[in-house]
């Protein structure tokens, strides 16, 4: 009999999943996990990588932990890790008391001074955009107390600051060389590093962690040893799973059926959270500065056809994916830009284009991403008499090109709903977040005013006002959010998803589980 487990983590509280996982069984011996990235560091602060995404909370303590998207401090959903308590002084000031028994894996005592140092260091390095955007400063008020000041008091900013900075001992970090920081760090989280091979993998081991009570979900020690191997090719990860070399890996949609139909594996499907959208360049001189052109394009294609080659997707029937807790459900019932060639023709005519003078536009895409959705878009627009040129740039070149208002008409982007729909909108349209203009170079005071009002209180009225204004002007078109799949050997019964990443130390193992290693 075929066995399949497919848990869609569509905004489900991971806390419930992990609470179950921690109480269900004794610690497993070992788990071997493959990740798709071979360029990583494991020091307290570093650039994004799969290894860091999957292990940062496992090897580094943060002040707090956010177990699911939208978890808030004031509702008690944010869990304490290094912080014993967090007290709001005012919207932009928080007093924090940390535990007085925090020691790292090399025996160094962690004090408030180390916490302040960690925040300042991360701000200086600039690896985490939320810290750069929201964190202003911190000051030591006692051996184990500090005050954090925020630049931005909008909702979610305090949670972001409190949960996104790894805490390390100042003296250790300043005295350690590069090799030690990245191969034998003095960790503050529940697992220490036992082996680190640059570009190849890292092994972690549960240690005599300084905290034994009131554990946050990310502080579980459900497995004694975690080995992470870097296997960049999706097909190679699938082969390694089938060959009994690893216990768990993210697999591609192409390989999905092989594992779903195999009794020896469990497959978990979950949202990628990176939601795709098209944004129009409205800067002066571009054809897409004309609202009629934007609407002609929006009505000339349907997102479902685009998504067909992208595997299982959750469609965005709106200017934001239905993910954030502040998403207004009523928007799903409203009319969006459904494909309507008659309407597209009307808008084209209004913009002064016809078959003798066809509209020509370009779309900026990342060349490393699958191109089929854009080829489908090109074909649909061609049916409406719009000539689309696909401009594929590699990731690095694209980052330079996308900031040039003279380089493109439409750009494909993806962004995550980190906590609220408003934070997603702020990334797209916030003038401050984008250096004065929006991602589409839109200079619109009313748009900014409505956005700030929506961010300020996230009331349905203000949210809807901004939402309707974006649709009315057709500044962007929401597309879809892809799903991802993680396959595990069938001894792993739950992978404890926290938003985008599994919490490797909080997974659930069957009683008869034995690692392949």
């Amino acid at each position, binding site marked *: 009999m075929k066995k399949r487990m497919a848990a869609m983590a569509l905004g489900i509280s991971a806390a419930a999943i992990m609470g179950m996982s921690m109480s269900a069984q004794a610690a497993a011996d070992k788990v071997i996990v493959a990740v798709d990235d071979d360029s990583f560091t494991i020091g307290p602060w570093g*650039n994004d990588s799969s290894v860091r995404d999957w292990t940062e909370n496992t090897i580094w303590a943060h002040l707090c932990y956010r177990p699911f998207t939208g978890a808030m401090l004031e509702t008690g959903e944010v869990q304490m890790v290094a912080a014993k308590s967090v007290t709001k002084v005012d919207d932009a000031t928080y007093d924090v008391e940390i535990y007085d028994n925090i020691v790292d894996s090399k025996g160094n005592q962690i004090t408030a001074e180390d916490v302040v140092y960690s925040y300042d260091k991360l701000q200086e390095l600039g690896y985490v955009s939320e810290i750069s955007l929201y964190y202003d400063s911190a000051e030591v008020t006692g051996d184990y107390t500090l005050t954090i000041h925020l630049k931005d008091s909008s909702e979610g900013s305090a949670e972001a600051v409190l949960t996104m900075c790894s805490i390390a001992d100042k003296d250790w970090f300043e005295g350690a060389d590069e090799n030690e920081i990245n191969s034998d760090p003095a960790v503050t989280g529940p697992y220490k590093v036992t082996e680190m091979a640059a570009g190849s993998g890292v092994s972690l081991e549960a240690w005599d962690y300084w905290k034994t009570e009131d554990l946050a979900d990310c502080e579980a020690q459900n497995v004694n040893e975690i080995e992470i191997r870097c296997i960049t090719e999706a097909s190679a990860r699938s082969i390694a799973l089938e060959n009994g*070399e690893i216990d768990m890996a993210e697999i591609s949609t192409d390989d999905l059926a092989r594992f779903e139909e195999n009794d020896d594996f469990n497959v978990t499907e979950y949202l990628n959270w990176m939601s795709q959208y098209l944004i129009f360049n409205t800067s002066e001189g571009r054809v897409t500065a004309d609202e009629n052109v934007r609407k002609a394009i929006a009505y000339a294609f349907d997102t479902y056809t685009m998504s067909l080659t992208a595997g299982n997707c959750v469609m965005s029937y709106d200017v934001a994916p239905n993910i954030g807790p502040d998403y207004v459900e009523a928007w799903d019932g409203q009319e969006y830009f459904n494909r309507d060639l008659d309407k597209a023709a009307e808008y084209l005519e209004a913009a002064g284009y016809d078959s003798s003078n066809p509209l020509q536009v370009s779309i900026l895409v990342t060349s490393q991403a699958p191109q089929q959705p854009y080829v489908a878009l090109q074909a649909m627009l061609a049916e409406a008499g719009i000539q689309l040129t696909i401009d594929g740039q590699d990731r690095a070149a694209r980052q330079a090109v996308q900031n040039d208002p003279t380089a493109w008409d439409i750009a494909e982007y993806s962004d995550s709903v980190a906590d609220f729909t408003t934070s997603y909108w702020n990334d797209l349209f916030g003038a401050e977040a984008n250096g004065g203009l929006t991602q589409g170079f839109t200079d619109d005071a009313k748009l900014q005013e409505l956005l700030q009002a929506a961010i300020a209180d996230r009331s349905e009225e203000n949210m809807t006002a901004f939402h309707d204004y974006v649709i009315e002007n057709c500044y962007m078109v929401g597309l879809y959010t892809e799903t991802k799949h993680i396959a595990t050997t069938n001894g792993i019964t739950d992978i404890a998803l926290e938003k985008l990443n599994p919490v490797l130390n909080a997974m659930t193992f069957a009683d008869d589980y034995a690692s392949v290693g």
Partner: protein
Amino acid sequence: MIRYVIKRLLIMIPTLLAVGIIMFTLMNFVPGDPAQLALGSGVHTAAEIEAKREALGLNRPFIVRLGEYISNIFLRFDFGKSLVDGTDIKWELMKRFPHTAKIAVFSILLTIIIGLPLGIYTAVHANSVGDRISLIVTLLFDCMPSFWTALLLVLLFSLKLKWLPSSGAKSLEYFILPTIANSLGGLAGFTRQVRASMLEVVSSDYVTTARSKGLPEKDVIYGHALPNALIPILTVIGMRFGSMLGGATIIEVVFSIPGIGQYLVNSINNRDYNACTGCIIFIAFAFAIIMLLTDLLYAYADPRIKAQYVASGKKVKKNG
């Protein structure tokens, strides 16, 4: 001889200097902003990007950055830090080099162990059935792209037979498939090179003389013919080994081996100027050293070349 080695080592300095300058200059003009890449994939303000650019020293004039980079490498053997993750490039190269070296050494050994006797056999038995079969098989290997060979090997030995691991670099067992995949294409070329060199030699007068003296065929081939055919063979081995030390990029990617080649590809994709330039200089250095060793091996393979080196040394001494 020592004088020759020193001379060659000194010649390497301007060569490596030129490589460093060319690479740094080229990478500087490739589109893409390292400051944005260093900040990661999130949304960043213009001020953040500018601050990062300042912190990385990218706002300084090109010539200043070039001068600093080159002087750090050649005077302090400091390749700098990765622009993307801040790691020490020398540290990364040192950690990764053993993996690349293992693939290179094993591959070249496999190539020699199989290719040399096969090439000799096909030369000695030219136009025989064995020669023709060898020609066809080696041509076939030559035509197979290494990534395709690698995948076939993985499918057969890992997925079907479950004899060998499909990816990683944890122990010697993990290097068996990469070594075979990396060797097959080169094996074909090498075998044909040995065959061609030997064919030229086996028909020469001194080989005929050796045979006419009644020496056993084995002695004729290995004692007289092979040493005289070695120079072009050594050249091929040296060049191939040198380029392998630069990283068998595709093999490293397919088998997830964290070698120099994989590091180079990542650094190119990330516009990590420092890492990329560091990799290329490292590869150039490895190649130059291997070619020097190859030249020295010429002297041991051919006494006439050794005599030339010695004579050249004496001449210089006399002139001095």
